[in-house]
């Protein structure tokens, strides 16, 4: 850029050197130690090397319309950034534009006027305003809604400050920008005082007063921009170059470094960033501090718009400042410090201390201060990495930078890389979420198991045997006794008791003891059924071999439960009514999804039991041959003895043995023909298969 290329030492070295002729102006080594005017007089052909400031100062009072035209060129020059950098070229342009004679004349006028300016002929200076904007200002002044008296006063004040500034700038002696700033600020205060308290402004509204003050500032600053903007006796240009170089070095910074929510890849977001950048860069193209501030405000509003889309709500300063820093870094505006200093020094002090413009301007200053002082720590990276990136040792690729390159595919790669990075982040998030969920599930399962276990431990599941009504047993026995030859049922009952049969023969005491042992085995098994995991019929299937039951039909878990129930309830007298209540209670406690209650009710009717037993015959006949031989002999004796013990003896142990085979057998059977649909063929198939497998039917 122009500012960067401009050697800043050009004017700084001149300060102490006065013109050799003793005219009081500064001389330069290039001019053989003469001041510009003396040099120009002596070497007319070398006048192109005059300092711009002095030349401008001379041109401004120059008469005639051509002077106005050249003035406008001058005025435009600072915003293009090459005005003061390339005076000789510019001069050449002017030469081509103007005829030689006119040119000569003009420069004589220039010289005279410059001398006059040196002689502090203020009124004459003010008498001529070469700028077309001056006409605009006059028009605007006329449009101000303040009394004519006020306008006149305002104009007078404008001219006075204008003259003061020129006088100071063209004056001798060392110049201090702070002095100048103070002078301008004092003038503002004075004008403000006049506007608010002068009788000629009495009828004006507050808004009109404010606009009058604004107008004053705008006119003076626009007219004197060339003097006050980055004056040669300040180090503004050095700072500009420094910060520009610094920002260039920091081009690797991404939005991520700044912890700002700008999406560099999103094209919509980029457009808004570009808008903000163009406003920020545009600050340099305005003359008056107000316009520069307004430009800053527009820039910041674009950023807020951007952040609003990114975050969904009005952005706070927490989001805004990083975004502004990002925009400043990516914009790298020219003459940043010159502009900032110009506004700080020469705008109405209250403007940068309050108001929206002041706030955003403060933010801009903060952003620049941050950029100038940032280090690795403030970007969240190590100082080594920071140094490497700053020195260019470590390469970088940012989506932002790549978008500025001509190579489209490179930008695509960069964008894709960023997208991949985001996807990877999402992926990690998902997988970590999955792991967490899995853990949670395991934990949940464990918790449930634990809870169930504790509940079970608190209230252990005890399955009580179903009490078989005594009359039913009696009936069954009667039937068996009356029809001993066909006794499949008897065989089953006997088969069930194969284990005990031997001991029964041996003696009554021995019989009782074995029954007790078997019963205890049953009860153990039943409590184990109570644990949640064991409720499935498959796991129940594992049990039968332990019980050594003769027939798989009776190995059904329900059978055990029933026998247990009976054991408890049969301690008193076996009663039908008792059976019903006890059984119901047992069932609800157990919460066993085996539908025994209905069947027990059916059991109470002797006819059905009888009918069932009859229907049972063909089924058992299929499986009977396998088991018949070992149990054939002790049929009647065993039955009699057990039956006796069941009915007569009050010992629970003995009562358990026989009723239990009876009961489930009926229940099982009814289980298949729950609605009195005894289909023999179907049952046969089932039971035969079961018999072969030795596995009870899964319910």
């Amino acid at each position, binding site marked *: 850029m122009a500012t960067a290329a401009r050697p800043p030492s050009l004017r700084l070295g001149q300060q102490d050197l006065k013109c050799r002729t003793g005219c009081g102006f500064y001389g330069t080594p290039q001019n053989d130690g003469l001041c510009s005017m003396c040099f120009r007089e002596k070497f007319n052909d070398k006048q192109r090397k005059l300092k711009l400031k002095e030349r401008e100062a001379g041109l401004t009072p120059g008469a005639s319309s051509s002077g106005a035209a050249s003035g406008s060129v001058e005025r435009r020059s600072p915003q293009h950034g090459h005005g003061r950098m390339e005076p000789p070229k510019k001069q050449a342009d002017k030469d081509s534009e103007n005829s030689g004679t006119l040119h000569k004349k003009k420069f004589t006028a220039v010289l005279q006027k410059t001398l006059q300016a040196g002689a502090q002929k203020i009124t004459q200076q003010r008498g001529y305003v070469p700028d077309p904007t001056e006409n605009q200002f006059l028009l605007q002044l006329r449009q101000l809604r303040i009394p004519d008296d006020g306008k006149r006063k305002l104009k007078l004040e404008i001219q006075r400050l204008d003259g003061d500034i020129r006088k100071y700038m063209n004056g001798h002696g060392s110049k201090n920008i702070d002095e100048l700033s103070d002078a301008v600020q004092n003038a503002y205060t004075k004008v403000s005082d006049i506007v*608010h308290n002068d009788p000629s402004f*009495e009828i004006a*509204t*507050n808004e009109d*007063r*404010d*606009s009058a*003050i*604004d107008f004053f500032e705008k006119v003076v600053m626009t007219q004197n921009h060339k003097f006050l903007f980055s004056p040669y006796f300040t180090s503004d240009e050095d700072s500009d170059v420094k910060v520009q170089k610094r920002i260039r070095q920091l081009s690797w910074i991404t939005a991520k470094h700044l*912890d700002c929510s700008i999406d560099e890849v999103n094209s919509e977001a980029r457009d808004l960033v570009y808008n903000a950048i163009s406003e920020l860069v545009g600050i340099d193209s305005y003359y008056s501090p107000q316009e520069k*501030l*307004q430009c800053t*405000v527009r820039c*910041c*509003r674009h950023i*807020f*718009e951007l*952040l*609003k889309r990114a975050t969904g*709500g*009005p*952005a*706070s*300063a*927490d989001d*805004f*400042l*990083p975004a502004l820093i990002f925009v400043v870094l990516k914009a790298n505006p020219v003459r940043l410090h010159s502009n900032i200093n110009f506004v700080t020094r020469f705008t*109405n002090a*209250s*403007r940068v*201390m*309050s*108001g*929206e*413009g002041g*706030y*955003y301007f*403060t*933010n801009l*200053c*903060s952003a620049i*201060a*941050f950029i100038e*002082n940032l280090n690795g*720590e*403030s970007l969240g990276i190590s100082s080594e990495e920071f140094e490497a990136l700053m020195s260019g040792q470590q390469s970088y690729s940012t989506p932002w930078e790549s978008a500025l390159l001509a190579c489209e595919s490179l930008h695509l790669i960069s964008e894709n890389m960023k997208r991949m990075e985001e996807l990877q982040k999402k992926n990690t998030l998902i997988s970590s979420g999955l792991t967490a969920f899995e853990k949670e599930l395991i934990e949940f399962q464990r918790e449930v198991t634990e809870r169930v276990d504790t509940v079970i431990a608190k209230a252990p599941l005890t399955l009580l045997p179903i009490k078989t009504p005594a009359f039913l047993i009696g009936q069954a026995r009667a039937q068996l006794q009356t029809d001993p030859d066909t006794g499949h049922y008897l065989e089953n009952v006997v088969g069930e008791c194969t284990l005990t049969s031997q001991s029964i023969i041996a003696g009554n005491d021995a019989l009782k003891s074995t029954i007790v042992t078997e019963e205890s085995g049953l009860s153990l098994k039943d409590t184990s059924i109570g644990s949640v995991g064991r409720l499935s019929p498959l796991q129940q299937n594992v049990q039968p071999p332990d019980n050594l039951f003769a027939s798989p039909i009776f190995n059904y878990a329900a059978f055990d439960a029933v026998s247990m129930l009976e054991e408890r309830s049969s301690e008193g007298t076996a009663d039908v009514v008792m059976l019903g209540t006890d059984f119901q209670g047992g069932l609800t406690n157990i919460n066993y999804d085996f539908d025994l209650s209905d069947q027990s009710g059916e059991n109470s009717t002797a006819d059905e039991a009888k009918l069932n037993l009859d229907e049972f015959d063909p089924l058992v006949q299929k499986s009977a041959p396998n088991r018949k031989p070992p149990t054939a002999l002790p049929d009647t004796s065993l039955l009699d003895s057990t039956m006796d013990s069941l009915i007569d003896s009050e010992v629970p142990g003995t009562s358990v043995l026989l009723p239990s085979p009876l009961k489930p057998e009926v229940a099982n059977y009814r289980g298949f023909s729950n609605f009195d649909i005894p289909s023999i063929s179907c049952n046969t198939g089932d039971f035969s298969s079961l018999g072969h497998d030795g596995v009870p039917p899964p319910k």
Partner: protein
Amino acid sequence: MATSPRTGGASGAGTAQRPNGTSQNKSCQFKLVLLGESAVGKSSLVLRFVKGQFHEYQESTIGAAFLTQTICIEDTVVKFEIWDTAGQERYHSLAPMYYRGAQAAIVVYDIQNQDSFQRAKTWVKELHKQASPNIVIALAGNKADLSNIRVVEFDEAKQYAEENGLLFMETSAKTGMNVNDIFLAIAKKLPKNDGANNQGTSIRPNGNETNRPTNNCCK
């Protein structure tokens, strides 16, 4: 809202009054900075104060960093110009630019976050040292609606505020608790003699007008 919002903007710095017209009301403009760690609810607090909203923002609310609100206290129109600051640690050093020339500051912390309270203390210390000497500082313990999981005890903060001459309230931007009150308290404490009609301070000694509806004298 007890206050009547008046949309603010980049208006000129004119606190002067017309000689005729609203001469019975003084007009003051104050710059108020918000300091505090990020995510303590600085901007939520201001949005609640200025817009009366917590989550449902109006479309027109473009940013919450710079907002203005005008309230009336007795015969004085007080315009607050609220400057939000970035709370992140890395931007801490930039804060002096913001509180330069500020007449009031609200230092916000999160009652669930001990660190934010410590940061608030450093802010207060810094303001005492570097800000204008007569700056009015208020300490706001935000997120008071979550007081059941608080970490910073009310009494601890209250004591600290008293020791350092701060206004102190626990606020909740979510429920609106004490939000208007803290701004009103600041407005009362501020010297209101920089208007055109200097009539001296008009703060009444009895400070029980906190809940006074103030929208009767505005507009």
